[in-house]
């Protein structure tokens, strides 16, 4: 690693040299007029830096996002100016909401044209201010190494997030002196020089020792901080059941006896009741999102709260903690684990077990129809959970969270905060590049799949052996569910006229399979696993299935609805 070295490079070369210095070897992107200089130098740096060409910039951002989640380092994507850059916006917002380190490098029109409505000009810096952790328009070629170094530093430290660096085409072509500082100079950004406060740690340990009915609520922080072992140790030592949020799934072994699953809007009934019964709630790397808490003022009314969180602005934002530990979760748990002691809590576990026995939230009802839950369950059984699951957003996502047990750390990639439909296809690409030896199962909604399915061309080109399981119910299922429950069953614009997914896959040069009957489901999954290459499976599932349990929007966790009796009756015909 060259410290303080000086050498002349073009701006585009400087971008690549910066990548080498921060350890980037993978880029997702699409060329265009303004970022051509970046593509011009790609061959020079191949294979040290590999670039994957996508079909739409949104896919580049999502792929880099999933890559970052799996790999644990920053994902990088390229786009050109104007429409290229604005196509990234959804992907950037997605990474921002889920705290994913993403570095987007966009080409900009030449400096002389900026602000003059040049061809393909968009003020992408201005556009992305509210959805990036930081962004910068670099107008001087000598600033590129500093800007890149800062971008990676900001994206990956503290609470991670996306950073955008916008560079005009002529700046990329200009030559300058490459200076790589050995220190990041940012006086307004000091996030990582803090250690857990010993007083708060002691307070937390005391609260744990005193509590009779504690629960751990583990969020994305567990995965971001790679604190799996520390969480496991805390739970096992202090004998505390573990609930994970949607993004916390696969942060704790899914089949562990202490694991209770997901809470919140579509969480397990017993979890929602346990949270409101608990006398201590230990929030680890969570932000107490409204989908988790339900009506905030009735959330965990009996519980004192311990909150370990890296982002100070999250502490006290939604709930008032009794002990607040502001630090990296891994460091905080390591410290906390030194102070916790074993404790018998059999009455509490009996209460939870009773709840689970009497309110089984996730039984799959007996029927000859192909139920979406049965498909997810079958994928779990056929793969034995040995895969990485990517999902989009909606009913299929909730079922993938409810009916699949993630024992492997960081094996569940989903769009949580922003709720981006269509995430599942490009996310699978990013996950596959990050983990080439893993099998990637992309569980897709038929609605979401249609938003990004152009990337099948990319997948065929690189021959990534991703298995796409389309949970095809012919409707925007979650939206239909809300229409049914909260809009007087007024079904508007949610039924989908889908293409023939098998033929569609084949048109892209991807193997297409279909399962229409229950007995075909498992053999089809098996056939997909046997195929050495990408596969799209069209699971024709029962179209009227709803996700339960459910906390109605604005209700408290105590008002969780279990499966209503009518759900087991034959589905009624709904007119489009």
């Amino acid at each position: 690693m060259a410290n303080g070295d000086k050498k002349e490079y073009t701006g585009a070369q400087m971008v690549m040299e910066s990548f080498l210095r921060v350890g980037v070897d993978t880029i997702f992107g699409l060329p265009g007029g303004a970022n051509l200089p970046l593509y011009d130098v790609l061959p020079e740096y191949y294979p040290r830096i590999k670039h994957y060409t996508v079909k739409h910039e949104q896919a580049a951002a999502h792929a880099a996002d999933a890559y970052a989640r799996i790999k644990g380092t920053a994902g990088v994507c390229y786009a050109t100016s104007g429409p290229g850059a604005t196509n990234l916006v959804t992907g950037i917002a997605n990474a921002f909401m889920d705290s994913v380190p993403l570095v987007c490098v966009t080409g900009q029109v030449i400096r002389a044209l900026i602000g003059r409505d040049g061809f393909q000009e968009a003020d992408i810096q201005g556009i992305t201010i509210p959805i990036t952790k930081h962004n910068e328009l670099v107008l001087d070629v000598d600033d590129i190494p500093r800007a890149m170094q800062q971008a990676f530093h900001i994206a990956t430290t503290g609470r991670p997030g996306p950073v955008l660096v916008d560079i005009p085409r002529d700046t990329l072509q200009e030559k300058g002196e490459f200076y790589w500082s050995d220190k990041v100079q940012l006086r307004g950004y000091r996030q990582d020089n803090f250690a857990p406060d010993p007083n708060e740690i002691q307070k937390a340990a005391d609260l744990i020792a005193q509590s009779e009915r504690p629960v751990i609520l583990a969020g994305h922080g567990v995965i971001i901080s790679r604190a799996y072992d520390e969480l496991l140790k805390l739970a096992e030592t202090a004998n505390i059941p573990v609930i994970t949020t949607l993004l916390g799934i696969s942060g704790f072994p899914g089949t562990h006896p202490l694991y209770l699953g997901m809470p919140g809007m579509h969480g397990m009934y017993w979890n929602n009741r346990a949270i409101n019964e608990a006398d201590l709630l230990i929030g680890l790397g969570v932000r107490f999102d409204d989908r988790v808490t339900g009506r905030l003022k009735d959330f965990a009314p009996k519980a004192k709260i311990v909150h370990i969180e890296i982002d100070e602005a999250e502490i006290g934002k939604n709930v008032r903690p009794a002990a607040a530990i502001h630090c990296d979760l891994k460091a905080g748990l390591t410290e906390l684990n030194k102070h916790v002691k074993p404790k018998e809590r059999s009455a509490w576990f009996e209460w939870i077990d009773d709840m689970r026995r009497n309110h089984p939230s996730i039984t799959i009802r007996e029927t000859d129809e192909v139920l979406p839950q049965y498909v997810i369950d079958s994928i779990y059984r056929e793969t034995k959970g040995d895969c990485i699951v990517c999902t989009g957003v909606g009913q299929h996502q909730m079922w993938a969270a409810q009916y699949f047990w993630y024992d492997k750390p960081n094996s569940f990639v989903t769009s949580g905060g922003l709720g981006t439909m269509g995430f599942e296809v490009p996310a699978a690409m990013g996950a596959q590049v990050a983990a080439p030896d893993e099998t990637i199962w992309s569980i897709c909604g038929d609605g979401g799949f249609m938003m990004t399915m152009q990337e099948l061309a990319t997948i065929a080109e690189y021959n990534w052996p991703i298995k796409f399981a389309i949970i095809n119910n012919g409707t925007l299922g979650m939206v239909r569910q809300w229409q049914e429950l909260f809009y007087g069953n007024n079904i508007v614009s949610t039924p989908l006229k889908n293409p023939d997914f098998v033929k569609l896959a084949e048109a892209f040069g991807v193997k297409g399979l279909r399962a229409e009957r229950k007995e075909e489901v498992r053999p089809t999954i098996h056939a997909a696993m046997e195929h050495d290459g990408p596969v799209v499976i069209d699971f024709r599932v029962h179209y009227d299935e709803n996700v339960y349990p459910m906390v109605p929007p604005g209700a408290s966790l105590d008002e969780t609805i279990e499966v209503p009796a009518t759900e087991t009756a034959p589905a009624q015909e709904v007119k489009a």
Partner: protein
Amino acid sequence: MTNSSEEIRKKRPHTIIALVEDRPGVLNRITSKWRQRGFNIESLAVGHSEKPGLSRMTFVVDSDANAEQVVRQLDKLVDIVDIRDISHEEIVTREMAMIKLRSTKETRSQLIDIAELFGANVLDVSPDSLILEATGDEGKIDSFVTLLRDYEIIELVRTGRVAMIRGADVSHPELPAEEQYDRYPGVHTW
């Protein structure tokens, strides 16, 4: 503390001071956050600070909502070195106003009398107008302007509040002489 005094406290506009990087886009980032949370900025004053490359801002925002969350979010911005709400601290505040008035031979001396009363300066005199400059807290400026409403105000401009904490304490923590990062970004951070 009684309820009513607590209420008065709450209703006082928030005075927030910030030390920020002096570069393009900073104001955009900050105002973007206030806008997102629905705060209206009543006044904003920006200028160089004693530290090279850093500007100091004073915001006054309307007070109905709790500004604490926004301040904490703003503190996360890379371009903001430090920010704090000093509404409840011992502070001095000042504002400057320039007022252009229509004046005749008869009214000129009356206007100058009022100006003297308020320690205001006469910046410009022409046969049918004059410009007065007053400095003080907002209450003083307000009463000054009220008195002048008896005459014809052609134009009025106010700078917005600037604020400083009383005593020898600094408003923002001392910056470390050199940054303490000893590692490369992006490589082994997680």
